[in-house]
């Protein structure tokens, strides 16, 4: 083996690496727990665990820490490498091997969940039908060609591209979309259209749409779990010959904004990121039951109609607490409800690797039972052999 290859192998097989990584994970969890007070659980998950390097703010200090992907990834490699090179398979150690195998599956499962899990929501009013779910936090700019009477042709630009002020020229758009300003969190208020934005405001001029009568006040990003950020962007549409103007887009603007260009009608909307499904749900009825004679909640349930365009599925389903709908790889949980206004919200989760933690736990449980069982048998056997001569 080449000396360098051997060095790399020894590094990854090393038990010292395991100890260092476990120590790192302790520090990481400690730092993340403290940071959660300020940042909330979602941001902490993203910054500390779904990253390679985490930056921990301690007062005015910025402390770099190995992120969850780095620690978990190295731990996974370390564990697999140890299995290949250090732990030779023996029946009497089958329990340890199985337990380690379970740990590997658990780590891979967590990695795949971090990479592939979708966690969206679907909000429905009674009799409303939807075939898409929406992100809890991510936004997108939808540029919609509404000319066709039957269909909408939609081009969506993620908010990450707006935040980087990238110019978007898509083959389906006869114009360029240029971001002039993006505010991750902003407050909107009505103002006189003829008055300028607030003095000293760096907000670019808005020449088109209802944004011209709205004052935009950028706000700091909030991390509080009970608050949400409302982004706003000022975008310019530039045709082949000239600019068509600048628009303010925000989920806060109640009315859709439309314009005409090249003989077609377009609509602009900054909205929560959507994920369309190959089926539709219609909310038929929401029910909030209470125990008779009390105000105690007994049950929250939503009766929905599930349909597919090909007509293969057309059935009613009752979704209630702890009884989600599993369909097409998605799980719809009863999440929130307002029975008074006939409104329900489902949490829509897709996690292709959802079985792995269960498999891992079974492997580890079985491995531990096997290992302790083998040790017990060995102990009994040893005791029997040592006690036999004494008896004789």
């Amino acid at each position: 083996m080449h000396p360098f290859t051997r060095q790399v192998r020894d590094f990854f097989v090393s038990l010292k690496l395991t100890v260092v990584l476990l120590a790192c994970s302790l520090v990481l969890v400690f730092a993340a727990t403290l940071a959660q007070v300020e940042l909330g659980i979602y941001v902490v998950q993203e910054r500390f665990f779904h990253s390679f390097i985490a930056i921990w703010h301690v007062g005015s200090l910025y402390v770099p820490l190995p992120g969850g992907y780095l620690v978990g990834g190295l731990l996974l490699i370390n564990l697999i490498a140890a299995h290949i090179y250090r732990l030779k398979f023996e029946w009497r150690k089958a329990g340890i091997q199985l337990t380690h195998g379970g740990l590997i599956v658990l780590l891979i499962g967590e990695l795949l969940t971090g990479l592939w899990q979708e966690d969206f929501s679907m909000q429905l009013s009674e009799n409303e039908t939807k075939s898409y779910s929406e992100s809890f936090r991510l936004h997108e700019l939808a540029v919609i060609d509404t000319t066709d009477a039957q269909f909408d042709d939609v081009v969506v630009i993620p908010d990450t591209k707006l935040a980087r002020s990238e110019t978007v020229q898509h083959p389906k758009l006869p114009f360029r979309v240029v971001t002039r300003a993006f505010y991750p969190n902003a407050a909107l208020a009505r103002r006189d259209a003829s008055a300028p934005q607030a003095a000293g405001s760096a907000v670019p001029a808005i020449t088109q749409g209802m944004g011209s009568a709205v004052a935009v006040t950028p706000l700091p990003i909030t991390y509080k779990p009970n608050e949400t950020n409302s982004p706003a962007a000022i975008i310019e549409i530039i045709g082949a010959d000239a600019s068509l103007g600048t628009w303010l887009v925000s989920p806060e603007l109640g009315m859709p904004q439309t314009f005409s260009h090249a003989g077609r009608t377009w609509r602009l909307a900054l909205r929560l990121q959507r994920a369309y499904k190959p089926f539709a749900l219609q909310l038929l009825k929401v029910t909030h039951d209470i125990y008779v004679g009390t105000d105690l909640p007994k049950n929250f349930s939503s009766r929905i109609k599930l349909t597919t365009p090909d007509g293969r599925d057309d059935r009613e389903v009752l979704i209630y607490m702890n009884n989600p709908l599993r369909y097409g790889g998605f799980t719809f949980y009863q999440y929130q409800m307002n029975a008074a206004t006939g409104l329900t919200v489902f949490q829509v989760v897709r996690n292709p690797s959802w079985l792995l933690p269960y498999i891992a736990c079974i492997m580890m449980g079985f491995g531990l039972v096997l290992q302790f069982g083998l040790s017990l048998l060995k102990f009994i056997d040893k005791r029997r052999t040592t006690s036999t001569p004494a008896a004789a």
Partner: protein
Amino acid sequence: MRTHRPTLVLAVLLLLLANGCRDREVTAYRVPKEKEAPPPMAAAAPSGGLPADHPPVGGAAPGAPAGAPATMANTAVPTASGAGLSWTAPASWTPKAASAMRRGSFAVKRDGGEADLSITAFPGDTGGLHPNLNRWRSQVGLPAASPTELDAALQHLDGQGLHFDVIELVGTANGAPSRMLGAITTHGGNSWFFKLLGPDALVAAEKPAFLAFLQTVKAP
């Protein structure tokens, strides 16, 4: 072959991670036309959204539903503060959620169509009566009118201690013939705007109900 295994494992892991770190891309798709959706902010649950005894779920704010409407549930928008007005809406109007910019919101449905009634309030005179009337005119595709023309088009309505300037505008919104009934009143140093906007025939048919609704608006 044995010596290549770590490299292979590393390569697979890096590929997985690279897959996870990829940026969201611009995408295009075609979807069947939606029925006119209610305005995003109007779709939110009313304040206190969940029943008071609903168990907290998912870590979201109680009363802040998970979708789009939750986005502005708690951000500070300089709308009017102080004591609000109260009203009684016709039973046929469907209450929608209030929001940071709306004090009240209703879906007015009739014959398969739907109009949107919004109630907003802002401090001061928000630029004055005439600019606001012209702003409404622009929303139904009408050019700005002179103060004299606007005054001539105004109707005046006295309700329960409040005076309303009411205007009716016919034009187009979103490419369809539309009608707007708007009413402005002042209370406690704030301007209150009541606006019903929707299909022409529907709003025309709802005018008596709208005027009767204004009569129910009262200060606390």
